[in-house]
């Protein structure tokens, strides 16, 4: 029960506030619409939603800090300095 599709889905939740908000309102429906299988949908429905919110906030703050400090954000984005 793990797939590139699940990793892509989580990456979207961690980077797109509106996608996360939509998921928290209708987790099973949104996960199914993303093409995840039944086991993945069930796992996401029962996931640590508080933690998802906190992780997404933390990632957002770290991306912002890196941009502001002209620091390591390019490492992940693939952009050259």
């Amino acid at each position, binding site marked *: 029960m793990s797939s590139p*599709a*699940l*990793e*892509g889905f989580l*990456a979207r939740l961690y980077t797109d506030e509106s996608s996360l908000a939509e998921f928290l309102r209708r987790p099973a429906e949104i996960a199914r619409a993303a093409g995840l299988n039944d086991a993945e949908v069930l796992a996401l429905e029962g996931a640590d939603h508080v933690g998802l919110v906190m992780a997404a906030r933390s990632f957002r703050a770290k991306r912002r800090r890196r941009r502001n400090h002209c620091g390591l954000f390019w490492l*992940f984005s693939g952009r050259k300095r």
Partner: protein
Amino acid sequence: MTGAAAAVESRDRFGLGWRPELAAGILAHLAQIDLIEVIAEEYFDAPRRDLRALQTLAAQVGIVLHGVSLGLASTVPVEPRRLDRIARLIDATGAESWSEHLAFVRGGGIEIGHLAAPPRNEALVEGACRNLERAAQIVGCAPQVENIATLVVPPASRLDEADWIARIVCGAGVGLLLDLHNLYANAVNFGDDPHSLLCRLPLERVKVVHLSGGRWIDGPDGARRLLDDHLHDIPPEVFALLSELGRLAPQPVTIVIERDGRFPPIARLLEQLDIARAALAAGRAAAT
């Protein structure tokens, strides 16, 4: 310190993460530092003069590379071009080893911009082991892999953290870079006992230890979790874990303090290195 503890301790090494803000202080105190850990990605596109400076530094102090962007803990194969860059940098700098995180950093074409904890399950164990094998083939040596901190219980997990890490580290036959603040944060955030979590890891594979600090943050519904932010001093609980590691793992280890911001005077970091030396030595002494 007893003579025996001092002898054992002399095989261990102590260093700092290399950051531009700390460079002057590190260069002025090389006698107190055994090695520096360099973020690999910062030098991928570095001008030749920067690489030469790193080579000069490598002649005076040990250098190890630390990657942050490979995303080895993934069901998606790591791209060879990313590994090629690590291989070239090791050649260019003479770094003695390299490390990466047990994390995924992208998915579906989206860059997360930080280290995310993947689902801890068998599929990820297999994916990570495949990626580590590929990394060893292309780079010429396998990385040591680091446990990461997470604010969320990774969705779709079926293995606990210690079991998941052990299966990857032992399955791929690689060394463990044990981040003790990450371990501590995950334990306190999700109701585990840090010392129990430590004991369940494959400690015989620990080659490097990271020490850092963090702060408590508030979340929805009154939740509070410990964030590993590398902006604060190392808490006493982490030094206690280092002592415990010294007691349980007899092999030589390399200790690296990571600090990414709110930089204190270099004297403060050197003082923390001394506390780390004493903590590890105390653990070594207790084992004898």
